[in-house]
Structure formats: C-alpha cells, structure tokens
C-alpha cells in the first residue's frame, strides 16, 4: 500500500531513540514558578490576583473578556510574590506572575469529579474548554475553544488528532499516546462532539509503530474513529500537510482547516481536554521532552507551567559545558533561549540542549533550486528572500511570502547556508505591517 503523505518535504535525522522509550516522569514542585500571562495567540490577559494573594493549584490568575483568549491558571499552591516583567521563552520581557510555592497542595478544582461529557451540550463543552485555559499544545498555542467554534454555515465532518511529532528529538506526543492513550481517545471523542463531526482520525508517523499499535487497539470498537500511519517526513505534522495526507483535501491559500471541513488538534491537547471536561482539571501542567546531546539525562517530563528551565536541568543532573544552544521546541522550528530562568509554558513541547556545532559560512545563492524542490507549500523561497534582502516587499508578497508556514525546510536544504526562512519571516512581518498601516 502506498503510504499516506504529502508532496516534497525532507528527512532530517530523528534523534528520537534518546528518549522515546523513557516513561513520563513527574517533576517535583519547584520553589518558585514564573508564569507568563501571554501563553496563547490572541487578546492579552489581565492578572486577576494581586501581589501577596494566596493562590491554589488550578486557580485562575489571569483572564480576559475577549473571545480569542484562554485564561491562565496557577500551577502550584502558594503566594503571589510579584507581578511584573520577566523574560519568557518568546519575549525578552513580558508580564509574568511569580509564585512562591508551598509544599502542601490545595486544589481549586474537585479532585474526585468524573463528569459524563455525553450529558453536556456542545456549548457547555466549549465553555469548559475555555475555562480550563486550553490552547493548542503542539506549539501554536491557539485557544482551543475558538478553534472548535467555526462560523455557523461551516460543517466539520472530520477531527484529526495530530500524533505525527515530525520535529526531530521530541517524543512527548509519542509518550502521551503510549501512556495516556485512553485520555487521548476520550479527548478526541469530546472534540468530535463539540464540533459535531462524524469522523475522527488519529494520524501518527510510522516511526512510532508502538504508538500506532496501541492507539489502533484502543479504537477497534469505536465507530467513525480510525488510526492512520503516515510516512515519516518533515513537516508531516504541519496542519495543511497532515490534512492533505489523511483526507486528500488541500487547504486553499489563506484559508483555514475548517474551510475544508476539518479541525486538527494535537494529541496532548486532546488529553488536556479530557482532563478539563471529565476530571475538571485546568491546563496547568504538560508533558515535555527535555533532550539533546549536551544533557546528561534526557527525559520525558510532566512539568507544571512556569517551572523555570534551570529547575528542570538541575532535576535532570545538569548539562555539560559545551552547550551552545538552548532551544524551546524542536530543532526545526524551535526558538533559541539565552536565559535559563524562563518558565515552561502551555505550548512548550520540548527543550533541546545542543552541544558544539560547526558554524558554516554563508555563500551566495547558486540557484540550485533545492528550496523549491523541497518546500511543502510549493513556494520559491529563494526569490522571496532575494526580494526581502532588497526590501522589495510587494514583490515578496507576489511570491506568496504570506503563505509560508515557516517549517524551515528551505534553510535546512540550502547548500549555501542562507537563512531563508528567517528572511521570509522578516518579509511576512513587514508585509503585515504595511497592510496594517495602509488600513487594508
């Protein structure tokens, strides 16, 4: 049988063996947590606690009235020590709530709750998802309740759970599917109910045969739900590529998954949705992979939001001195960090500690067309970059800069070592700015 996949893309070395067989370990409560209040794409939140307040685990500490938003909860029990600007993984300075933790935990939610989601209406489910602060945990951090509320005239027929985890090194979704399989499946069923979809597909890259087998067994008696193995290829986990591979539907430029009747959710998000609806637990901790060759003991961890990276490294026995890069996320799309005190966020799927790497010289573009041959969006990255380097933004837009999904494939394959995707990001930001200022 021909393997399900998308066109073009690349095969980076995986490095998943390091952590794929390690069980998820729960990290102890750190002495303090630094919780950024901006952990989603959308409207900014406002802190609802004050300095000196005592907060319980799972208590809302920042919220917003806006539709596109997701509240943030305290991940520990303790006292608010400060509300102010701290570095976060995505910003050098942003509002965070620092909490000094106490060992004895009190919970803001009922530990014994066991709600039958079938008794809840679509609207009630969406409300609970929002209340639990759930965002896309694959990295995008888009509020889940908003994603599951498409315009009224749209019919969603398929919910896809993204278990591809196409980024090298990361294994948190893999372990989630193996260890939290039931929660993942129930989460999928809740999402299907919320968007009134008939079909559910769990798409898993074929480099995780154990996860495919486990999930396949789970869905044997479920009607409308299937597990599909997809070819291991980067960026298979990108929404558009996954929908194409599993359903053959191609999202037109500028459109969203719901335009082709699909919503996609990360497997970790599904598990969090199960926790939120059935167990009443808000999203205050998550599974993440902490790995890389400069780390003594790589691991898959269950860590609370706001846990400083330095605490995780200490917990794992530190890293060697030849560390050169600290990356939030995977090596293809992750963001480099320089501060070890930033905290884990809802969208932190992994932390990567890389050792010594040879720096390579940048050459001129030689028109080899490797970027064109591998771009999963069929763009001409080299053209966009040449326009961007010369600040010709309208031409960059003509060459579809705005449709770039920033997967990094072009930079990966470039023999001249040109940071293509970086320039495309610059172009996208500039084009957006120009559009905004011209009022379009």
């Amino acid at each position, binding site marked *: 049988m021909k393997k399900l996949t998308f066109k073009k893309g*690349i095969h*980076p*070395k995986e490095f998943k063996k390091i952590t794929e067989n390690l069980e998820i370990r729960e990290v102890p409560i750190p002495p303090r947590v630094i919780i950024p209040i901006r952990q989603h794409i959308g409207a900014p939140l406002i802190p609802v606690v004050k300095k000196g307040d005592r907060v319980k685990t799972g208590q809302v500490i920042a919220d917003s009235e806006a539709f596109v938003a997701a509240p943030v909860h305290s991940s520990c029990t303790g006292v608010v020590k400060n509300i102010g600007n701290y570095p976060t993984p995505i910003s050098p300075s942003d509002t965070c709530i620092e909490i000094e933790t106490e060992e004895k935990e009190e919970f803001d939610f009922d530990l014994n709750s066991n709600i039958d989601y079938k008794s809840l209406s679509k609207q009630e489910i969406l409300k609970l998802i929002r209340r639990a602060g759930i965002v896309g945990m694959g990295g995008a951090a888009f509020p889940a309740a908003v994603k599951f509320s498409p315009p009224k005239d749209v019919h969603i027929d398929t919910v896809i759970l993204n278990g591809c985890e196409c980024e*090298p090194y990361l294994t948190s979704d893999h372990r989630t599917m193996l260890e939290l399989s039931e929660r993942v499946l129930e989460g999928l069923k809740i999402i299907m109910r919320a968007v009134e979809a008939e079909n559910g597909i769990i798409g898993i890259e074929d480099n995780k045969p154990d996860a495919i087998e486990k999930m396949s067994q789970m869905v044997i008696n479920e009607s409308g739900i299937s597990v599909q193995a997809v070819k291991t290829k980067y960026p298979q986990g990108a929404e*558009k590529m996954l929908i*194409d591979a599993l359903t053959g539907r*191609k*999202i*037109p*430029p500028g459109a969203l998954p719901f335009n082709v009747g699909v919503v996609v959710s990360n497997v970790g998000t599904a598990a969090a949705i199960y926790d939120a609806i059935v167990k009443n637990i808000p999203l205050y901790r998550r599974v993440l992979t902490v790995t890389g060759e400069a780390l003594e003991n790589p691991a898959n961890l269950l860590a609370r939001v706001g846990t400083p990276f*330095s605490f995780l490294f200490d917990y794992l026995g530190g890293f060697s*001195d030849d*560390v*050169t*890069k*600290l*990356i939030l*996320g995977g*090596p*293809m*799309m*992750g*963001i*480099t*960090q*320089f*501060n070890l*005190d930033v905290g884990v966020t809802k969208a932190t799927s992994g932390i990567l500690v*890389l050792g010594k790497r040879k720096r*390579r010289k940048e*050459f*001129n*573009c*030689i*028109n*080899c*067309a*490797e970027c*064109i041959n591998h771009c*999963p*969006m*069929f763009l*001409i990255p*080299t*053209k966009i970059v040449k326009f961007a380097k010369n600040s010709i933004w309208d031409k960059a837009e003509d*060459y*579809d800069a705005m*449709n770039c999904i920033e997967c*990094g494939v072009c*930079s*990966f*394959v*470039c*023999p*001249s*070592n040109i*940071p293509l*995707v*970086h320039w495309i*990001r610059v172009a996208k930001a500039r084009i957006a700015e120009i559009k905004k200022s011209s009022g379009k």
Partner: protein
Amino acid sequence: MENKFNLILESSPHFKTKRSTPQIMYTVVLLLLPMCIAGVYFFRWDALIRILLSLVTALLTEFIFLRLRKKDVSSVFDGSAAVTGILLALTLPPTVPLSDVVIGSVVAVSIGKQVFGGLGYNIFNPALVGRAFLQAAFPVDMTTWVKPFYFNLDSITTATPLGGFKIDGASTALKKLILGNTGGCIGETSAILIIIAGIILILLKMADWKIPVSIIITVSVFAGILHLIDSTKYQDPLFYLFSGGLMLGAFFMATDMVSSPITPLGSIIFGIGIGIVVMVIRVFGGLPEGMMYSILFMNCFVPLLNRYTKPKIFGEV
C-alpha cells in the same frame, strides 16, 4: 541568570543538511576528471597543459577580482572558479595556443562571472563566455583540430565529425563518436564518459535531469524528422547527439545551476530551447557546431522563464 554559557541566539532551523555549495562544486570537478583523463589519453601533453593552465588562470583571476572587490578571498576555493577553468579547457581544441587558453580563462571568470557580482549572479555560463570570446577573437585557432594520438610537431590536422559532415558530407562511425576517438575539443569527444558522469551528477541531485533529457529528446525529434525527410542530406539523430559538444553541454553546461532556470517547467522549456537552437545552427546555420551559442542564447531567457513558469502554490487552483 546571565548568559554564562555563551548560548547562541539564532533563528530556526537549528539543523542543516550536510551538503554545501563548495561540496557541489568539487563534486562537479570530480565528475569532470574522467573527461580530462580521456582528453589527456587522446591528446596527451597538449591536453594536460591546457587543462592545468586554464584551471590555474581561472583561480588566479578569481583571486584578483575578489581582492579588487574587497570580498572574502577564501571564496577562491569554493570550487566555482575551478569548475569554470576545467570546463573551459574541455571545450578548447587540443592545440589551441596557450595564450588563448589564458585569455579565455581570464575572460570566463572576469567578464563571465565577477563583473556580474561573482558566484551566483552571472547570467551566462562563465566557461562558455570565455569560449565565445575566443571563438570571436581567434576563429582560426579555435577551429584547427588534430587527430587523436598525434601530438606536438607531428600533429595531423583533421576535421571534427560535425565539421567534416558540414563541409564534405563525410560521415564518422558511431562507435568512434561514442568512444571519442575523433577530432574535437579536449573533453568533448567521448560521449560515453560524459553520459556516465552526467548520470552520476543527476543521481547525486547536483544537476536537473529535466534539462539534459529535454535537450536530447528535442534534438532526437528534430534530427529524426529531418532524417526521415531526406536521409542523404541529413544524418541520423544519433550522429547529432554524439558529436560535438552536445553531451558535455547538455549534462555539464546547460545544467549549471546559476545560469539555468529554477522552476521545473522553466527547466524543460530551457532544454527544448537549447535543443532547437543547436539543431537550427548545425543544420541551417553557417557553423558546424552550435552548442555553445544555443546555451548562451537560452541563458538570456532564464530570468523570463523563471518569472513566467512560477509553479502554483499548495492548495492554489
């Protein structure tokens, strides 16, 4: 906490392929070696001296221009000048005066490449610019051919298979054409070696297969039709394919990344264009050989081809 580990801040991705531009260039150099060896085998010292002279001159010219342009001179060894130097030598007659070799090599690297802005910016294939200059400036030197295995003072002049056919209607055995035991340029005579090296280059994904394939198909169809019309006046397609610089041009010059299109459809049109132009020159034009001019001619159209063959993006209808 301060950045005590000297952590690098960089935009993603943090992974890179192992392939690099110098690696591509030196692989091309390596794959040109069989033709160099064949050239030396057929034309002995004459060939060897010209290959080395052209190579050294190309590197020196590159160095001087990088210095003048205040660029990083270590780029001399990025391999691109080496490719130009060797390619130029392979397209020269084995007994061309050494001064011509030097002039051609200097022109190739300076006017062919550096004046446009160096690596990646040239519109034309640099080696062919050098050769075109020599053809215009020293037409006699560039069309004096010797028989293989005769060298130095005893060299016996001969015609190339294409020239012989054009002028006298003389035909050359196909076996000779394929092996390369004919009069011709240093590295162009052995079609079989060029094809093998070219296929390796394509398998390594360092040349676009669409370009040589579309050239070969176009030439075959063009020559095939003519041959069917009048087989006494026109040779069969195999003669046109295996003679002159067609194979070297198709596999190693038209596929030059810098001066060939970047879009898939553009590459096909580019190859078809070269095939048509080379046959028009060979059959209807005044010159026996037209590979050089056809590639240079189609090089002009590359920016246009790139612009008008922009592929549809994902999901676009």
